[in-house]
């Protein structure tokens, strides 16, 4: 069974009297443990697609099944719960809370999942350890390098054992060397921990780390191919 399945998924925006068809009739299926890169120029609809897949937004038409559950009719709080438990976000700008330690940043999804006390701390420490950030748990984001910050963000995405990691231009703010490190980390997570990774990028080199590349243009999928290794 597919982890992510869309059926004729469409998203329209209404600007005055005009309809902007950001996404039209997208039918796609992503299985568990896949590593998929979504590519396309700006305005191609890939961000809209990400928002829908990430349950940050809801479609205008069609259907989206995440882990077999239809997302389209859920309310705001139900969506928040799905995001908390099914999706780990990694953003371009890291999006860590400022003036908050690495540990507390990683604990955040657990806090909203009502996991308290010792268990919360232990799971967060474990996630940090997995990302090679042992000893950095008390550092605030401004005391960490970009690569370290992004790894804290990845730890935060992993801590709730979400089946899907959604990474939106995760290397956009990093230099080439650090970008490679982070991408290798994703490859390893996909291989060793069977995380399903969906990566949005406009850089071919970054997309090449994945196993499957889906290209968007003008709200449609123009290609969907496996990467030969």
């Amino acid at each position, binding site marked *: 069974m597919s982890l992510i399945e869309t059926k004729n998924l469409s998203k329209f925006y209404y600007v005055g009297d005009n309809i902007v068809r950001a996404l039209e009739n997208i039918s796609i299926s992503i299985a568990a443990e896949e590593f998929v890169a979504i590519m396309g120029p700006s305005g191609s609809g890939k961000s809209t697609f990400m928002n829908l897949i990430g349950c940050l937004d809801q479609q205008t038409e069609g259907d989206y099944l995440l882990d077999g559950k239809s997302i389209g009719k859920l309310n705001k709080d139900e969506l928040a719960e799905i995001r908390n438990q099914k999706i780990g976000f990694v953003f371009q700008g890291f999006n*860590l*809370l400022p003036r908050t330690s690495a540990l507390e940043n990683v604990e955040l999804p657990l806090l909203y999942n009502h996991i308290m006390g010792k268990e919360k701390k232990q799971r967060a420490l474990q996630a940090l350890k997995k990302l090679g950030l042992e000893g950095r748990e008390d550092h605030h984001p401004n005391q960490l390098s970009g690569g370290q910050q992004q790894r804290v963000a990845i730890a935060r995405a992993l801590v709730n054992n979400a089946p899907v990691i959604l990474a939106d231009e995760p290397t956009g703010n990093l230099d080439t060397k650090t970008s490679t490190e982070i991408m290798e980390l994703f490859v390893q997570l996909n291989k060793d921990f069977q995380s399903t990774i969906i990566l949005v990028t406009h850089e071919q080199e970054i997309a090449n780390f994945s196993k499957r590349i889906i290209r968007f243009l003008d709200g449609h999928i123009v290609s969907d191919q496996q990467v030969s290794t």
Partner: protein
Amino acid sequence: MININSTFKIALRALWVNKMRSFLTMLGIIIGVGAVITMLAVGTGASEKISQQIASIGSNLIIVFPGSITQGGVRMGAGSQSTLTIDDAEAIEKECSAVSAVAPVLNTAAQVVYGNQNWATAIFGTTPGILRVKDHELTAGRNFIDQDIRNSTKVAILGQTVVENLFGGMDPIGQIIRIKKVPFTVIGILGPKGQSLMGQDQDDIIYIPVTTAQKKIAGRFVPGMVRSIMVKGRSAEDMPLAEKQVTDLLRQRHRTGLNKEDDFTVRNLTQMMQVAEQAANIMTILLGAIASISLLIGGIGIMNIMLVSVTERTREIGIRMAIGAKTWDIRIQFIIEALTLSLIGGILGIALGITGSSVLSVFTGWTTIVSALSIVLAFGFSGLVGIFFGFYPAYKASRLNPIDALHYE
């Protein structure tokens, strides 16, 4: 909903980041709570003082004065006519059921001499009932007995001020003092009462038997007549009844015709004091209400700064939402932040109010009383202000769209 404890921690941290701003915002609440507590302390102090005075003049007190006389169309003041007698007083005591004690009073001022000391004071010719009427206790010696009244014995009960001025540290009981050159034996000393509402020293007084006063001290006063009759009602509820009974009885005894005016005046002293007390209570409420307005303005300050904070932290809100914060998780976070501001402000305001009340009391000499209730009230109110004015910013935060919030710069 998320853990309240960690939410408080988050709130404290967020407030600590903008120390100066948080303090200035709190200042509104600090001044508001301080003002409420100080104003209530002034009001409570005033009404407490009046209650004490009510207790000191004697509770449930009615004073009957003689009426005025009219001479050739000119009406003289109350008491210009001698219409009240000792017999009237006795009749009131016997026949009025709502009355618990009665004392006729024939008062005058006189020079009192003991040894080489002398002192001008008020002399009250009265009966044993005076102690009960005025709720006056004896600290030493004895009260008059009926025999003293019947035989016009020359005995006296002295107030504290008189004792101090005539005897210094000596024990006055059994000593002989001279009032208008008539020797009196001191048989008792009154407990202290302090000043009356009008600033009169209630301890500067000597009680002697009313009959002795008529014969030896008051001079050419119509025999049997008194200047006033003090009446104590059985209870506060019985006061109107006591007033009516006294009036009816005296009209009957004085054979006043149906349409004729009373030849006496009945004054309910307690009622007058209670009116004063009510006025003080209204003043307390008024002062408190005015002070609450500043607390309310403090609340608006909180709302203002919370709205700024929500805008500044739009991105943080977006991150929290993406990670799984629900509507009420976000709301609670901001409400608790506002609540933390107002409660810390409240605690500091209580300290300010207590200090302010004592400083005010020192500089103005007013009695100020900081009651526990006013502290609880002010603190509770500041909490409510925090929740009330924190709600709208929190509501606004929770309504943000996570996608827009995440991309807010």
